[in-house]
């Protein structure tokens, strides 16, 4: 459930980042920064999507999780410097859901 929330939030982030990069008069349209943010949201969502679909080999889970979390933080940071609050919010939600899903999974494992 939490991974799904993270994934959906990432999808919404792609929409917001895409709009900011591609629609006119956003203040950042067409800039390298806007495309970087778009790329970041796509990367985060793809990574989380792999968890959701369960297509991650168990050996790679840790690495992919760290990468997803790192990309989410960096994308959120980019969104903050791009003044794209909506993208920032989606990345925060995505990150929180991702972290919580991990914590929940660990608790389930230990119990």
């Amino acid at each position, binding site marked *: 459930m939490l991974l799904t929330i993270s994934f959906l939030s990432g999808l919404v982030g792609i929409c917001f980042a895409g709009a900011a990069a591609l629609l006119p*008069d956003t*203040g950042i349209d067409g800039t*390298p*920064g806007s495309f970087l943010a778009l790329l970041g949201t796509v990367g985060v969502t793809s990574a989380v999507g792999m968890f959701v679909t369960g297509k991650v080999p168990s050996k790679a889970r840790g690495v992919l999780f760290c990468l997803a979390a790192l990309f989410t933080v960096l994308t959120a940071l980019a969104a903050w*410097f791009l003044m794209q609050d909506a993208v920032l919010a989606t990345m925060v939600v995505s990150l929180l859901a991702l972290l919580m899903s991990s914590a929940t999974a660990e608790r389930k494992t230990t119990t």
Partner: protein
Amino acid sequence: MKSIAYLVGTVLVAAAPALADQPVWGTFNGDLAATKFSDAATLTPESIPALERAWEVRTGDVSDGSGDVPATVWSATPIYANETLYLGTPFYRILALDPATGAERWSYDTKSTLEALTQPALKNRGVAYWESGTDGPCEKRVLIGTMDATLHAVEADTGTPCTDFGDNGVLNVNQWNETNAVFPFSLLQPPTVVGDTILIGWAGKDWVYSVEPPGNLIAVDARTGALLWDTGFIPPELIPVTGTANIWSSMSVDPDLGLVYVPVSSPSPNYWGGNRTAPIPLATSITAIRIETGEVEWSFQHVHHDVWDYDTPSAPTLVDLTRDGVTVPALVQTTKQGFIFVLDRRTGEPLFPVEERAVPASDADGEQLSPTQPFADVPKPTINHTTLPDVWPLADALSFGQCSRDRETYRYEGLYTPPSVEGTFLWPATAGGNNWGGAAVDPQTGILYVNTSQVVQVIRLIPRADYEAEVQAATADGSDPSGNEAGFYAQEGSPYGIELFEWRTSLGLPCWKPPYGTFSAYDLNTGERLYEVPFGLAQQWGFYGLRSWGSPTLGGPVLTSGGVIMIGASMDNRVRALDAATGQELWSDLVAAPAVSIPAVFTHQGAEYVVWAVGGNSILKPQVADQVVAYRLPPKE
């Protein structure tokens, strides 16, 4: 008829510097005194957060330069007169809009060539307005100049040409371009209209040739376009070897004294003066000219033998100040160097001390710099040019020490360090400091408000023998990549071409420590600076800088009697309202490009409007637009 008489009356009131109180916005700077002061009393710090977009129009006259049409630069102040909003566009069309809705009433196309004949871009700063005060066709006119040196006069109600003006409504101003005519007199800044006289300056390109058209001010009759007088600024004996010292910016007028105050630019070429070692007293000056005759009344040269392109960028602001209990008619000139010169506008005598100080010498071939330059410590300069800004550690680290190495490589010995072959820091940059947006002033309190850019450039003289090879090496096709304020400049006829660029890392980060732009207020009665705050947000690759960094700016502020500053100007595509008392931001809105213009603030049918032309300027960033956007307070319930 009643409305015409009212309008004429109010225009006359607006022309009096001490009474800058106008329901019209009839000139580039709002009034002839260039106060940029509006009596919009409802625009207050309390009401301004509710300011909302009333309408928006796209003119269609825009180019990013990627096709056949050169890029556009649009810095027009909308003119509100005759209960209509008039705009000039960078395609040299006039638009007449309904101020309440933005609906087009008429348009007029000059059919000017869309070639950047004297500038790197198609530029326009708007239109001028004249009316006789009587009824009849063409008794109210809108005037627009073109890149190819024609001045068009059209009927203000219909947009039809006024056939009694020039040749069927078109005056060929280039007919007076008789000497060293290597380029046409580009009419990019709207002319100044005072009474029935139209005062015309022009723009050229003083970075390309040594010998160019000599600068002058042309006065013509508003009805016929007939030449009234033509005053030159280059001594006749120097005309064969130099040129320009022209007026490319706006002017201010004191009708009571019968004087027009003109900002005279630097002689050609911009960055080497070995061809013009004899004095040119009127160059890079504020000069007062008698409107009736064209005679020079007085002149104040603020840069001697200018080789920094620190030409006078804006109309001086006229305001009456109190000195020792006595009211003094004053003139305030903000400059690219960051000095604020306050003069008695009757005589040109400084009202605060101006001191001639020794400045560095040049080692360029044939150069003979002035040993001294005028410095004014009060009011405090808008730029601290006693020292170069520190290297920004972040940029230095990310460039592996490039900024520090540059600091050791290029020359800087204070303001007026001359251009050199090894490279010289230009601090402030050639765009200033303060540029054509000028300052706003409260005529009641004598408080001045001004936005300032804090940008460092590097200028390098390139010996003629090496110039072509360097340009070839720097560009793919060997074409001269000169931009407006950066690039290679040929300076043909001189021993040096030049290269001018901002001091940045290879990744594009500024090498100098922020801030990059500020907003300041000064009490002109005492010379005290009341505050200086960072203004706007810098932007690179789309990322915004921190608030404390500020932004370089182009364009000027407007002050309302309600105590609010309305200003675009920053590179972050925002228009803003500031609290005049503190400089703090009260409101902002995102627009299509940097609003590098002065807004019009006026009252129409009982509502107060703020209107910007949003066009962008490559000096700030490569983004252009064709947006006209109007704001007003919501109607009261």
